[in-house]
């Protein structure tokens, strides 16, 4: 297990390096760079100084290595300094956003809690909806409930979140007036009243993302339960005279959850992708909104860093899913 983990970690390094190079080059070599957007009225020597100040006059390779050093050494060291009061990264240049001139990771640190609250809740809600649906659909296969569940999953796959989100806004915010259309980022939860307000403004984005996630997970739960329902150990358990409840919820469910847990782990990075849409639709000021803002403002360091963070998340959760599978299922050994 340990050797497998180490080998996978070592393999992840070249993958991530290539991805970072691809992201860096794609953004950097593109024709529409911000350097071409300096107004022509700016005199040439000032233009030259502006480009120098951004560090954009260095060769691509130098900038790539510097960016890597900033990403993998300076930023973690700064974080470490912040926690333990050391001076590892003192005087080092951090990755600066071109929009706000403040460090990219500071902005991400400010935005992340918003994303985590909304997206995290949505994913949890999605799982909580999906598991019972999947379990009951499999237990009563081809029943009306199962067919309803299949239709729900099909709709969840097919209706894109930007449309379901808009529909929810039209129905619940515009017509019924139950929830606000926009998410108020400045609201801080201090008492019961503000908590209620927070819950209300979270309802629509959480519902939008949660239903989309629930559709996928419920399908996996159902097929995994169906695989296990016909196993010999289930018949044995029934033959021993165990109640249906124990057979289904203890024997079958536990074994069926193994692949579902890995699917849930694999889905975590992709919800950040889906969250970009939801965040923009509802005005949640999270990292997805930060990415879109940076793209529209031609803020290359911000875009590169955020895109690379998404890639790191994908690689990381792939690894976690593989390890979880080995840990949970004794039939799978990686040595």
């Amino acid at each position, binding site marked *: 297990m340990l050797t497998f983990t180490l080998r996978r970690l070592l393999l992840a390094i070249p993958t991530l390096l290539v991805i970072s190079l691809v992201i860096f080059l794609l953004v950097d070599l593109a024709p529409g760079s911000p350097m071409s957007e300096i107004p022509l009225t700016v005199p040439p020597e000032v233009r030259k100084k502006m480009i120098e100040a951004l560090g954009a006059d260095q060769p691509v390779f130098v900038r790539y290595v510097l960016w890597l050093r900033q990403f993998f050494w300076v930023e973690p060291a700064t974080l470490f300094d912040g926690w333990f009061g050391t001076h590892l990264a003192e005087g080092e240049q951090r990755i600066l956003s071109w929009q706000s001139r403040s460090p990219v990771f500071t902005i991400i640190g400010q935005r992340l809690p918003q994303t985590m609250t909304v997206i995290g809740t949505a994913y949890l809600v999605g799982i909580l909806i999906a598991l019972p649906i999947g379990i009951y659909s499999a237990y009563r296969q081809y029943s009306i409930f199962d067919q309803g569940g299949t239709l729900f999953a099909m709709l969840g796959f097919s*209706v894109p979140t930007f449309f379901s989100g808009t*529909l929810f806004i039209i129905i619940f915010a515009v017509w019924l007036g139950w929830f606000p*259309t926009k998410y108020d980022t400045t609201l801080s939860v201090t008492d019961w009243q503000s908590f209620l307000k927070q819950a209300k403004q979270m309802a629509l984005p959480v519902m939008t993302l949660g239903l989309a996630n629930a559709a996928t997970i419920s399908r996996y739960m159902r097929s995994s339960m169906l695989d296990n329902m016909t196993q010999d150990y289930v018949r044995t358990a029934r033959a021993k005279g165990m109640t249906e409840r124990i057979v289904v919820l203890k024997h079958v469910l536990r074994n069926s959850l193994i692949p579902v847990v890995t699917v849930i782990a694999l889905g975590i990075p992709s919800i950040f992708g889906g969250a970009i849409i939801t965040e923009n639709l509802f005005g949640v000021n999270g990292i997805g909104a930060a990415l879109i803002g940076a793209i529209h403002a031609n803020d290359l360091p911000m875009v590169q860093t955020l895109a690379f963070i998404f890639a790191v998340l994908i690689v990381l959760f792939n690894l976690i899913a593989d390890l979880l599978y080995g840990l949970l299922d004794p039939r799978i050994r990686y040595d």
Partner: protein
Amino acid sequence: MTDTTSAPPRPSSPRHEIWQQFRTHKGALFGLIVIGLLIFAVLIGPYLWVPEKLTVAQAIKLKNQGPSLRFPLGTDQLGRDMLGRMLLAGRVSLAVGLVAMVIAIVFGTFVGTMAGYFRRLDGLLMRLTDMFLALPVIPLLLVMVMLFRDRLAGVLGPELGAFTLIVFAIGITSWMATARIVRGEVLTLKEREYVLAARSIGARPNRIIRRHILPNVVSPVMVAATLGVAEAIITESVLSFFGLGFPPDFPTWGRLLYDGLQYMQVYPERVIWPGVAISLTVLSVNYIGDGLRDALDPRIRGR
């Protein structure tokens, strides 16, 4: 010895059997009918429903109209007929889905066959596939469109430029699943006796792949292709949703939805029509994919 005079009933052709199985899937039939109607509508519709030519002054007076006989779906904020726009937009949306799928399938099948057939290429190509799978697709697509749109528009014109860029970008970020499926199939197929026989009589890899291997990977690829169309349509509308898709005078359903968002509170139907069109298309295509998967699987078929 069996009696040879009475011929056994002629076995039905595989195509017929597949159709028989496909027909039993209600969702797939529904999908086929809906998608057929949609394709018919967007292909023939713009000829049957020609929006009347209005001067700018007339159009401005007729802006934001509700549904009427003259404008069955109303008009938008510039007085343009929504039905005509929906039909034209559907053409572009479906074309984007189909072309992007073809690019993804061709490239994915090529990579998968190479990786599966030639052992030396396997490691390299599969690492490449893994790497592409780890790319954050939506952010990268948005960045690509933003950075390359103007340059391509300068070369190919705004419409064709946007179309080429988006179709190509979606295609090269969605071939990985096909490549993996094809590789797996090829790995088992190339050990089959008939392939060994072909090789033993001196057939070249090129011929073996084209004559003996590719025809046998068609069915999983077809399923992947159907689902790929759905995914490409959704991805394109996500790009349009961020205003980074097609120009407003050459709309797709996603672009119409994006344009309608500002007027959502007053004229919700302008969001609902394109949204329903996208969802219905994707739903139908997904159902067809589901039905195809069942129909092409010989283990399920004939039961």
